[in-house]
């Protein structure tokens, strides 16, 4: 197992509605806290393989891995400010996007 410099998660956009989704243990999740975290190159490759398959199956688009850190509660937090924006929603409209929602829900 080759350790990654930073853990990674796989994110994408849902084909039907464009919302940002994260590959979890039971499929694609709308809440980043449910994201499956890869700590080695092999685990990251596994995530990518699933992502490519689901892209080909027309479930998601614009799929890629991003570096994260793991917070005290075990949740991943993106390192780059672009992905920090994507897990929340617009910083100028806190009433919109994921940040405006309560409980995480499943991708249809």
């Amino acid at each position, binding site marked *: 197992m080759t350790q990654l410099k930073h853990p990674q998660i796989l994110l994408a956009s849902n*084909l*039907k509605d*464009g919302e*940002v989704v994260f590959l979890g243990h039971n499929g694609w999740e709308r809440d980043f806290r449910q994201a499956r975290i890869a700590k080695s190159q092999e685990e990251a490759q596994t995530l990518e393989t699933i992502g490519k398959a689901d892209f080909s199956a027309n479930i998601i688009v614009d799929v890629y891995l991003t570096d994260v850190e793991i917070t005290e509660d075990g949740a991943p937090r993106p390192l780059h*400010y672009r992905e920090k924006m994507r897990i929340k929603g*617009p*910083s100028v409209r806190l009433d919109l996007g994921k940040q405006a929602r309560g409980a995480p829900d499943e991708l249809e």
Partner: protein
Amino acid sequence: MSLNNTNTLSRINSPKTTYQYDEFDKDFIRERVAEFREQVRRRLEGSLTEEEFRPFRLMNGLYLQLHAYMLRVAIPYGTLTSQQMRRLAEIADRWDKGYGHFTTRQNLQYNWPRLIDTPDILEALAEVDMHAIQTSGNCIRNVTADHFAGVAADEIEDPRPTAEFLRQWSSAHPEFSFLPRKFKIAITGATHDRAATLAHDIGLRLVKNASGEIGYCVIIGGGLGRSPFIGKIIREFVPRSALLAYLEAIMRVYNRYGRRDNKYKARIKILVHEKGIETIRAAVEKEFAAMDHTAFQQDPQEFERVAASFTPPPYEILPSESSKLAKARVETPAFNDFVSVNVSEHKIAGYAIVTVSLKPINGIPGDATSHQMCVLADACDRFGFGELRVSHEQNIILPHVKKDDLFALWQTLDAADLATANAGLVSDIISCPGLDYCSLATARSIPIAQAISQRFSDMARQRRIGKLGIKISGCINACGHHHIGAIGVLGLEKKGQESYQITLGGDPGFSASIGEILGPGVSADQVPEVIEHLVDFYLAERHETEAFIDTWRRLGHARFKDVLRREGEDGADI
């Protein structure tokens, strides 16, 4: 999914002051909606891959952004009827999140549509003669125009009939649907350039020649983005009858010689820059001389038919001054400020042009809620012959308001938070959506605009400063026109952080210029402070009513750079 059972179609006071689709136009739009509905169905069932589908969705103005899809709706030459504005509000409520964003190309963007709803949205638009075609892709985009077209006191001729001709010529033009890159045209008929014609791939100015004939001064090769250029005149005068043929010749030369090997060098501005205007002019003139003009010869009757769509509304004969207006200005200081700043001279006595600012202090530039859109639609039905304009400065214009009605209009606007008296002032900031929405952005731009407007929230101070254009882009693509802002702000990524480069000396008008970089990038927190120092220096140095750009030109860039250097030495953290 029709919305026609709503009150959208009511236009209380609606003379034909704008182009009305004929059956050919309507059929074309309906067919495109049906075609896209089928493409979406095939995409969702999996018979079209994303690679195959992407060009189709882009041809219909549908992007995939940071949080969701984004639909860009075309507003040809920035002209809207009240009926269309009401429909935009209905779509925002039904399929989006209750608001829309007016852009620097006079369009409207919805930030949250679902792919599965987009065919219904396009159908709802088609019912009011609107669409999203050619708002994306490597084609001729929505033609933009002076937002005071047809009413400006400084106008030679209304540019909208020409813009409508160009819309018809460029829509689904088979030869120009796959250009090397996108292509933008702007037109003005006035002696002041409110359409930034020198910053477009083609800029057109209506002019009169020595014999009094009206024609076009044609400019090419302007553009912003990562390589900004001011356009160059390719021909001083093209007669009206030859305009389409001449533009066709330009497009053919660009289509033939424009670079397709590198998207960053594919715009016509690069071709003009690399080959030189003389070489391009010779190639265009050669093509123009050799081509068969028959198909492009303008039929004067057809021009008259189109021009008749833009007939002035039935203005009343009124005195040029309004005692009602004068009284209200004395009695209500806030209204007086609004009139001083947001009301412009109209070519007809007793009427005025009103700019409705979409830039409240701490607001998001260009955003309007569905309620505000409905207020604007109702207001223009009541006070403005049912017509609105969108400016490239991301504001809304009521082009025909009786001076006697200005106070009642202001009260209506004020109740909807639409009466900010800052048109053209330091807080009337152009800003792209930036990294809050856009997948191309490298930094946020809206929070910078909000922080600057907060810093200058004292409206009396803004009026003392006077006209000053601040323009902010969240990436090098320059949708926020930062290159032509008197003060420009460009958001970039530097070592994993958002960083902002400030430029000075940009000018969007006939004396257009590209701004010069002030110095190293600064953090988001520092931008308002830096701008305040620059403005304070300008106020101390200006001659009487001299504009910021003129003071900068007189004193030179180095003097402004020195201001910041001195502040830094004094301990300020900039």
